[in-house]
Structure formats: C-alpha cells, structure tokens
C-alpha cells in the first residue's frame, strides 16, 4: 500500500461525492459530470494506492526461498536435522548460527565449521552503531525497525522476562506471509539478528510458531 496516494484518492473521492450532491441539488449537470470525472480518477487511484507494492518484492521473495532451500539442505547434510538458531553480536554485525540446541559456540566462523557440534554460520551486517548501543529505547527501536523499516507486520509485541524474550509479530504483511514458514524463515533470521544487535547479547531461539498471519518467537539470552 502507498499511504500518500491512498489518502489523496480518499480526499478526491470525498470531494467528488460532495460535488455530485451539490450539482444534483442545484440542477447543474456540468458539476455532476466534473464530480463523476474526479470520482473515476479517484477510484482508480484508490485501487492502485491500496494494492501498490514495491516492484522488486516478488523477485526478493523468490530469491529468499531459493537461498533458504540451499541453507536448509546444507544444514541437513551436516546432520543438523533438529537444529536451532543462534545470534551472536560482534561489532556492527551479527553472526547467525544454525546448529544443535543448547551448545556453547566459541567464535563461529562463516560458512561451515565444527565446534561442540557442526554448524552453518553467516554474518548479517548492519549500518549504524555497534551492537547494544541503542540504549534505553532498545525494544521500541527494535519494534520500529521491524514494522517501519522492514514492514514485516503491523504490530510487534516484545516481552522480556529475565533471560527470556517473547516476540510476537501480529498481522503479518501479505507479501511476507510465504516467508514465515520454518525452517530458516528470513523473518526469524532478521528479527533474531536485529534483537541480538539491539540487546547486545547472544541469543538462542528456543521456540518458533508460525500461524496464519502471526509469528511467535521465543528466545533466551545466553
């Protein structure tokens, strides 16, 4: 959706309705005609504004699916059938590691390696400050990033209780919906990386549930 065009179209539609009424009651059919013309353009603008999406989004969705398949196959071949995700912040980047649950990871190197267990790792780079530098509004900044910058969902709920953190994405964007499936959902990967960067702590994903247009993540701060 393009908010600016939608608001413009809604205003034009309102103006055309008022003009139709004015024209009809004053008996001026030129005014009714002009209003109908405005209404026709407004209806087209409203449809286009509401159904607008970035032209490259389909390409990105396809590319994400292909990359995910490759990574999932790689993890499977390394014996990581029951794997989980870790996010380890390092300076301006976060290393995402796919490995067995509840293991100690010491400086995992991209792309594949063997520590306490075999792992697949990749780095997610970020612009801006170092990890953990967000400050007091850490959670708000994370929520804003996920909703405004990435447009993942309309609402994000984050609850931090001790060393546990629950993240719920509600009303997920239609375009992103096909991407919230397990394993290695790009939404989960990016959310985990952003959260690790915001908190400046190593995280482990312990629970992931995708349902309709909701994605629920439970992570523990390691």
């Amino acid at each position, binding site marked *: 959706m393009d908010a600016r065009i939608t608001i413009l179209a809604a205003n034009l539609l309102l103006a055309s309705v008022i003009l139709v009424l004015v024209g009809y009651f004053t008996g001026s059919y030129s005014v009714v*005609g002009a209003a109908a013309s405005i209404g026709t353009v407004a209806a087209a603008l409203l449809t286009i504004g509401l159904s607008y999406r970035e032209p490259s989004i389909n390409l990105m969705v396809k590319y994400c699916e292909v990359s995910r398949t490759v990574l999932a196959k790689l993890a499977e071949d390394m014996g990581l059938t029951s794997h989980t995700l870790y996010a380890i912040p390092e300076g301006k980047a976060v290393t995402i590691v796919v490995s067995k649950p509840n293991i100690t990871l010491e400086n995992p190197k991209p792309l594949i390696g063997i520590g306490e267990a075999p792992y697949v790792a990749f780095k997610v780079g970020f612009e801006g400050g170092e990890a953990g530098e967000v400050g007091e509004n850490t959670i708000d900044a994370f929520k804003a990033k996920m909703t405004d910058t990435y447009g993942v969902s309309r609402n994000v709920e984050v609850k931090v209780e001790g060393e546990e953190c629950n993240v719920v994405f509600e009303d997920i964007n239609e375009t992103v919906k096909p991407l919230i499936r397990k394993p290695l959902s790009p939404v989960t990967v990016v959310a985990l990386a952003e959260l690790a960067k915001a908190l400046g702590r190593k995280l482990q994903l312990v629970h992931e549930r995708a349902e309709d247009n909701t994605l629920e993540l439970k992570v523990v701060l390691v």
Partner: protein
Amino acid sequence: MRRIEAYTLLATSIAAAITASLALIGESRVDVYVSVAILSHFISVALTGVEVEVKRKAFTTLTIVYIAVFSAIVAFRVMEILYPELLEKILTPGG
C-alpha cells in the same frame, strides 16, 4: 520518479484538463465526463506502466470494471443513434 507517482500526475492532469474543457463548453452529459476520465486512466497506465507496481488481481478487477462501464456508455450512445425507439422502450418502465 516512481511509476505510481508518474501515473498520479499524468492521470490527474489529463482528467483535469479535459474535464475543465468540457465544463467550459457547457457539456452536461455525465457519461461523457466519466468516459473521458476512464480514457485518461488507460492512457496514463499505457504511458507509465504502473501495472507492474500493483497487485495483479486488484488491477485486473479495476480494468474489467472500467472497460465494462466504458462499453456500456458507448453501447448506450450507439443505440441512442441507431435504435432510439428500442432504447426508449427499454428505459420506459412497463414499456
């Protein structure tokens, strides 16, 4: 400039120019204004290619609706010239 912005600019400019011209010459037939606005939409779409930035289903629905409305207007006008009696019979209640 994004295609959607180009479309908005073009469609509103064409529609505004033609609507103002029609109003100035005292045109009072509403269907003329509507058909010209529909034409301005299709011209703008053809020139800007905005359909690639819009979800296909919504855009197809809009196109079908506008073509249907435009065809109905044209059919009505053609019938008005060729078969005025038949049109009057159809439009007269109980006729």
